[in-house]
């Protein structure tokens, strides 16, 4: 189907299903209940899930396939965001041209940086990309203030020229990004009993783009080009003695992943029309590396899972404060309750980084293939158990 193998098509369907029903799946707790604060199904967070999912899918095309570890991909995301905001300022509030421009500009920018950085491989490549990204960050933060807005970031203003559209709305406000009139912040609330679900236009736009981006990634993974990228990761000596030039292959992968990052940046600005230099900082570049490794570098679905997990930790897990803990462990005797809370407290709330770090370490040590490998191991174990059950069906029955 759609030029995909059966297995890949099933995976695509799963992703479509998950993104389509995310507002419901992520809101398992009734509104107003004590657990409602752990609902992740609000537009802002769901948008972040899919946008960082796109970012990680693209990063994985470079890192997962070729093994070239870039520490500067946030620069392309930042460039994408700036491009999109400028499009809003100058052309129109329609998100489509803004997103297209951010992909193009990020592609050109990554072509330049990739061309230089890919002269080296291994750690030197990583350091070069890191240096370029930090340079971009510093420039955006200071020298390029007229273009980037410097410290305050690039924002829309009431006197933006905006050729195709008004500078201000009739009521004197800054107009909001839209897709041919459909405002990105438009939401439809649906109440089912005690539950309430929010369906947001911006989220669904991002979700459709995620599905397309994921589909494209599958095609790349299964193409001769994808195989060449894996060959580069595996043995560059054999690659060149087979008559293949690794440079253009790695550069193409670098630019594709840069364009994915630009797409994510453009979407981010479309959801909330502002862009700041901190989006280009090395911590942001490191985050996408973590997402990819956590989920499983080189796997199709892994980076999306990793992005979801990290964003969930950042936004939901971090909400568990000492009050919540006391509520949870209130059934324990007083002294014990305090003890347990003291024990757990450093790992939750503001300490979410600590837990994430431990999870990351465990994954890297025990599941080098990431969460996807964990899932595969569980599935294999279940299959094995089923097989032994089938082989001797009487085994589980008690003896008479």
């Amino acid at each position, binding site marked *: 189907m759609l*030029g*995909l*193998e059966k297995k890949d098509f099933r995976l695509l369907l799963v992703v479509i299903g998950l993104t389509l029903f995310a507002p419901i799946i992520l809101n398992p707790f009734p509104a107003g209940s004590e657990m409602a604060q752990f609902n992740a199904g609000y537009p802002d967070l769901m948008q972040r899930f899919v946008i960082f999912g796109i970012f990680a899918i693209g990063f994985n095309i470079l890192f997962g396939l070729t093994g070239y570890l870039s520490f500067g991909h946030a620069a392309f995301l930042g460039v994408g965001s700036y491009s999109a905001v400028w499009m809003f300022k100058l052309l129109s509030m329609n998100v489509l041209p803004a997103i297209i421009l951010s992909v193009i500009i990020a592609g050109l920018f990554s072509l330049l940086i990739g061309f230089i950085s890919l002269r080296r491989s291994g750690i030197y490549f990583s350091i070069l990309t890191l240096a370029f990204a930090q340079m971009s960050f510093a420039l955006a933060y200071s020298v390029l203030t007229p273009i980037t807005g410097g410290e305050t970031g690039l924002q829309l203003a009431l006197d933006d020229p905006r050729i195709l559209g008004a500078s201000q709305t009739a009521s004197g406000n800054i107009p909001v990004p839209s897709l041919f009139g459909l405002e990105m912040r438009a939401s439809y609330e649906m109440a089912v009993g005690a539950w309430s679900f929010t369906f947001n236009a911006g989220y669904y736009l991002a979700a459709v783009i995620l599905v397309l981006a994921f589909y494209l990634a599958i*095609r*790349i993974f*299964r*193409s*001769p*080009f*994808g*195989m*060449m990228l*894996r*060959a580069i*990761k*595996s*043995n560059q*000596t*054999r*690659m*060149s*003695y*087979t*008559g*293949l*030039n690794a440079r*253009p*292959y790695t550069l*193409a992968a670098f630019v*594709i992943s840069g364009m994915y990052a630009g797409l994510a940046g453009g979407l981010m600005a479309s959801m909330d029309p502002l862009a700041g230099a901190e989006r280009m900082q090395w911590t942001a570049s490191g985050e996408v590396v973590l997402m990819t490794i956590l989920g499983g570098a080189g796997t199709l679905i892994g980076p999306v899972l990793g992005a979801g997990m990290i964003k969930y930790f950042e936004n939901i897990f971090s909400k568990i404060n000492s009050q919540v803990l006391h509520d949870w462990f209130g059934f324990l005797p007083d002294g014990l309750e305090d003890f347990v809370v003291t024990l757990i407290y450093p790992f939750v709330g503001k300490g979410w980084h600590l837990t994430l770090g431990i999870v990351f370490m465990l994954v890297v040590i025990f599941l080098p293939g990431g969460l996807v490998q964990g899932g595969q191991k569980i599935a294999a174990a279940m299959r094995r158990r089923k097989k032994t059950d089938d082989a001797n069906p009487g085994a589980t029955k008690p003896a008479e």
Partner: protein
Amino acid sequence: MGILEVKGINKRFGGLQALGDVNLSVEENTVHAIIGPNGAGKSTLLNVLVGKLIPDSGSVMFDGQSVLGRKPHEINQMGISRVFQTPEIFTDLTVFENVMIPCFAKRDGAFRMHAIESITSEKGIRAQAEEMLADVNMLEKRDMLTSSLSRGDKRRLEMAMCLVQDPKLLLLDEPTAGMARADTENTINLLKEIRTKRGITMAIIEHDMNVVFSLAERITVLAQGTPLVEDIPENIKGHPKVREAYLGEAQV
């Protein structure tokens, strides 16, 4: 005029003259062995031929074109394939993928952006790779990861990857180094089979005299970076200069 013409090659590493005025001519459709004691410059010469090293002076002509200054992948595209001392294969890929890659390189050149087509739809390439694997008796291992292959199978696979490109010249760098007796015999037989079936021109660097004399049709003896003699195997065996070179080494 041979298919490979090496003239007056010199290469110095600091104070060491690794190659001094090397001339070599490999005739089309022969197996040409280059032998010599350790440090004779065999590997240096090979690295010059494949573009890994650039000599200080001299010329290397292959099939009427100069090889010098070209990158290894360009030289491969000209028709020279190389088999390494330790097999260089793509270890995280399957056997089948390993053989498909050179097929793509042969058809599409050094780079082609075929990112949307599916590998499964490449019928011609797949058939070609399958045929090659059948030729080296590895078809039943096609879906194995190459990291789990035996040493002998890795060697066969590497040969298959070179042969599927249908090279005009196959360079072999000590193909039996470190092999057990049985594996060595297998490799000799495989090479003989390739030779009779495909008539490929080969240049082989080898230590093992048994291998050399069972395969080579011409032999060049290198010593201290200079060719001593070049002749047919029968004449090399008892040649006084050759004995001197090898015995000289033995005395040290």
